[in-house]
């Protein structure tokens, strides 16, 4: 019975909030995750001086994720020059391989920031079901677009949106 009340209450709140939120983009949740050398990093510190940010969830065991990040890396210099975009790659590897992420990233020579998150708090807060899952944030730190899965060439589509966001255009139809 208690469950029922809680559930109905939450459902009601959800419905009300969804109707209110229809036109509203959302902020990043505040979660403590880790940098590659084990230090605490709050996700609210993911910022880029008013320029767009890409957050991509990946793991060492995820082939398409690594392909996507390789593709980002190949284009990264150009992207940064043209739009000032910043990429954060958030590894969801568990303690089986968290210690391997840093040497792997160095061996890949990826130029963007890589973060670790212990036990999935950030993933749950962002409602990520499967990876790769990529978010695009506008200059105000609002999530304006998200996408799961990566197919060859997917980076071009994403970059078109990054350019729009960098120019202050709306991509709310996406």
């Amino acid at each position, binding site marked *: 019975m208690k469950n029922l009340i809680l559930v109905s209450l939450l459902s009601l709140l959800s419905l009300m909030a969804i109707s209110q939120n229809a036109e509203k983009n959302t902020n990043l949740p505040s979660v403590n995750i880790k940098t590659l050398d*084990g230090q605490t990093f709050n996700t609210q510190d993911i910022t880029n001086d008013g320029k767009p940010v890409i957050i991509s969830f990946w793991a060492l065991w995820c082939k398409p994720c690594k392909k996507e990040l390789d593709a980002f890396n190949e284009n990264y210099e150009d992207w940064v020059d043209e739009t000032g975009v910043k990429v954060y790659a958030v590894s969801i590897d568990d303690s089986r391989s968290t*210690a391997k992420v840093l*040497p792997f990233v160095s061996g890949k*020579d990826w130029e963007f920031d890589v973060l670790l998150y212990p036990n999935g708090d950030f993933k749950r807060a962002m*409602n990520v079901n499967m990876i790769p899952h990529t978010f695009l944030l506008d200059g105000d730190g609002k999530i304006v677009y998200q996408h799961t899965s990566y*197919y060859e*060439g997917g980076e071009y589509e994403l970059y078109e949106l990054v350019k729009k966001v960098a120019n202050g255009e709306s991509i709310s139809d996406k």
Partner: protein
Amino acid sequence: MNKLKIVLLLILTIIGVNTVNAQISDMLNRSEVHGSFQVDGQYYQADNALGITDSILGGRKMGLNGFGKITYNLGKFSAGMRYEAYLTPIAGFDPALEGNGFPNLWASYNDDNFSVTVGSFYEQFGNGLVLRTYEEWALGYDNALNGVRVTYEPVRGLLFKGVYGTQRYFWDKFEKNDRGIVRGVDAEMDFNTLFTGMTNSKFRFVLGGSMVSKYQIDENPIYKLPENVASFAGRANIGYGKFNISTEYAYKINDPSAINNYIYKEGQAFLASLSYSTKGLGLFAQFKRIDNFSFRSDRDVTANALDISYLPPISESHTYALTSMYPYATQPNGEIGFQFQVNYKVPKKSKLGGKYGMGIAINYSQINDIVRNKVNDTTAINQKGTLGYTSDFLKFGDRIFWRDLNISINKKFSKKVKGIFQYMYQTYDIATIEGHPGEPAVNSHIAVADVNYKFTNRKSLRIELQGLWTKEDMGDWAAILLEYTISPHWFFSVTDQYNYGNAVKADQIHYFSAAFGYTHNTTRFQFNYGRQREGIVCIGGVCRQVPASSGLSVSISTNF
């Protein structure tokens, strides 16, 4: 007079309603609702070659696993719920999952340096050796704690956590004495944040410690079992320039259980890794030892459930169909092993690297049994109700559970063509890992070529060719996959895995399947038709046996 009263009342009401209205509207404006959904369904058909007949299916022609999660945030407050349905669970998931309902409900309040959560939650102390609760949809695994969690950060860089609760056990609601109660505390100090003088130091230091205890009543008629089992762990993360060391040691008092054959030995777990990272090169070495460290909130449970500790396997997790055919799983009763890895990027425009550079990854891992000595002349090793055995900390046992050497090359040849090439030699102690006593270890050579051809920026064809050669178990395999993708929405694939080297002629089976999928933003549909080979799916430390099946499967997922 009356009129005045009525007018006054009316004005007050209007103001009141407006205020409340404004408050509600303000509250709703600051509210955020998010959620995610996934439904995986399978329709089974009889397939004589796989030994699946209509009578085996017995009318259970469909399986469905689904979940829906809604979270609500309002400033510092958040709450959520998770619905799950397994009607009936897809083949290979624990039959105990059958059912539906809301296993997880939670609410939490997060202040700047303080948080409290009630209901179901997930937590990990350090590497998880003494506590990790998590949820893995693909395995049907969820050991969430249901209770209270508090975190407190008195100053930046010093974090305390406390948890108290009982763990999820499929759909069984906790009732008095039907499983243990878990409580734990953890503290972590990040020196570089805590001490301003160290903020920009090349030397980085994080220190942590935890204590976890479970309480379970002793109702055993024969043995006197410890009702409170305590465990302790200490960890450190030390970085200096390009070097990084991460280590954790855990100790547990005696905890006789169904997994360790009710021996009264204390348990130990140790993990240490060292890495060196510089631009274009990463080196990694790791050592691990586990000795009698199964830690669960019910000592009598042997199913994949109620784990308090998480013992990460230290082998590479492979992802190609044939490289992941024989995956390793940590042996909680005892194992000792190490791992090395090299990641190197051959620079662009070098002789070997070519125009685009080339990635090389080499990994070697080996895991042996630990050495066990008799505790005295009259007691057999691991005899029930005794101290079990003694063991030297650094000695490797003779039995090899796992050995894996693999080399992978990642190369882009031109704007249109790139590929990944992998070779692997693997030893897999099938008798220990899968519990098939007497079977010889499987030694296999595995090779993979994964080539991608880009027609246009959006259209690509990927071809995977794989071979696995072994004299043991089911013998040789070959596999092919063709995948055509139209970014960012579509994929189409056909695949065949062929057990051509099986000693039994009738088991030389082709496992054909075809799939396609459509993704729009975060909504994804996928359809798959064909045969699925018997196998093991492992994520992190947990593995699940998947039986052979034939039929149609559908997966839909979305989030908002």
